[in-house]
């Protein structure tokens, strides 16, 4: 079963890293093949950034862009003013939004889940250059809907960052995993 995920974020929020952590966690959790890739344009801090991930139990031969995602992850609600984040999403798809608002606040043609990843990032001190980095909490929230164990996500995070950084990012992911609501 192929799952295709699109991440919308801003340069510096870690969308590309989120896609990579998800891919790593999915492989640890027993999926056969994964991909994680960015869309490269004129990326710079603060500018809209897209990243993509594929997870499958068969070999993935696809090398094209993801145009009909199963899940869209929005790291920054400000992007929703300028980007149609539900573009191409499957009818039974899901949009996961980083916000303190409930899912009922949003009006999309598919299901919506919300999690306040920014508050989690601030509380867990997931800050880089004064910006809350919400990518690891968002991967935690996402894992819940992909049936990926939070243990695999935490392991993938701790492989990427050793010591305290790994611990607090793993904690952020777990809090989001438990807090995300539909």
């Amino acid at each position, binding site marked *: 079963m192929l799952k295709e995920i699109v991440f919308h974020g801003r340069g510096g929020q870690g969308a590309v890293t989120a896609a990579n952590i998800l891919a790593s966690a999915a492989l640890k959790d027993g999926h056969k093949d*994964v991909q994680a890739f*960015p869309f*490269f344009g004129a990326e710079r801090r603060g500018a809209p950034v897209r990243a993509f991930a594929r997870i499958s139990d068969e070999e993935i031969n*696809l090398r094209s*862009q993801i145009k009909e995602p199963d899940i869209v992850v929005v790291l920054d609600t400000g992007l929703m003013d300028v980007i149609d984040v539900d573009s191409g999403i499957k009818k039974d798809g899901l949009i996961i939004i980083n916000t303190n608002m409930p899912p009922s606040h949003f009006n999309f043609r598919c299901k919506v889940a919300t999690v306040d990843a920014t508050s989690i990032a601030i509380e867990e001190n997931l800050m880089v250059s004064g910006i809350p980095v919400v990518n690891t909490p968002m991967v935690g929230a996402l894992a819940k809907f992909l049936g990926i164990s939070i243990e695999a996500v935490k392991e993938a995070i701790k492989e990427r960052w050793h010591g305290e950084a790994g611990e607090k990012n793993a904690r952020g992911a777990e809090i989001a995993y438990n807090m995300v609501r539909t």
Partner: protein
Amino acid sequence: MKVIDTANHIAALAAKMAKPAVIAAYPITPQTTVVEKLAQYVENGELNARYVRVESEHSAMAACIGAAATGVRTFTATSSHGLLLMHEMIHWAALARLPIVMVNVNRAIGPGWNIWSDSNDSMGQRDTGWIQIYASSNQEVYDSIIQAYKIAENEEVMLPAMVCYDGFILSHTSMPVEVPEQSKVDEFLPEFKSLWKLDVDKPITHGNIILPDDYMDVRYSMNEAMKRAKKIIAEVGEEYGKKFGRSYGLIEEYMTEDADYVIVATAAIAAEAKEAVKRLRERGKKAGLARLRVFRPMPYELLKYDKMIVIDRAISVGLGGVLYNELRWLGDVYGFIAGLGGKDVSYADIMRIYELAEKGKEGWYGIEVK
């Protein structure tokens, strides 16, 4: 050990594990993270190589030529305009019969300035005498670099080899890759023993003037070596399979036996085409795929199909698709240009191309034929 990483990091890892003595490096998007990673390996002591930071790609190849002529293993990597700036030295490396291995991360040529995938850079080097391998996955990038050294350094070949893969589509995409143990790689690829070398204690003249009567012999011997490379590439791919569990040939066939039309493509488009063939079969169409892994030497004798659909990510302006024009004499061949400058080519596009070919159409996909 299974790792997940980008093709560029995997290329650097493969190069490291091949143990080159000299690496010449000049960065260019989207190749940059290959040489960055190698710089890290040298700096942290994981790789004992001379890392030469040159002032241009022309110098990068010149440095590899000089080093390879002293009988050691060399590596460099480039893309697009970098490869083009090297062009003179690319010829030199091949005519001097130096088994240099280079990665080319395929990228379009400007203007208009474009950093995305396009095969015109490396396919434009087709007449230089380099072996060219096109990889379709990060695993194949790793495996092909290790094999490239063994092929290039074979005494029956002694030609440089280029391992090519799509910019961003592979270079910056993370995929799982099985990385063998260093000791196994060492067994497969022992230290390079050159047939000859520049040695101040035993001076020889090298690259001297050669008169018209002899020059043709040089070219002839090079062409013969390239022909022999077909056999060596197949043997090395099979030996690699015995050792590491993944075999490679000059082409990879998928559902070709009973196919009405066989799609011929390279690199990422060829991987995507596999998905298209699967889906076309589900619709009752007898589609097949021949993924052309090796472009030089051109294994045309393996492409024995009545009807072929060639998808090109490279254009010879004024003639047409590069691959198409190399293969059109083999039978009933339909040529499509697609994906230039990184334009997305999905399985749905390839399925559409198949249907267009069935109707006898061909041309620039999305412009002339839709």
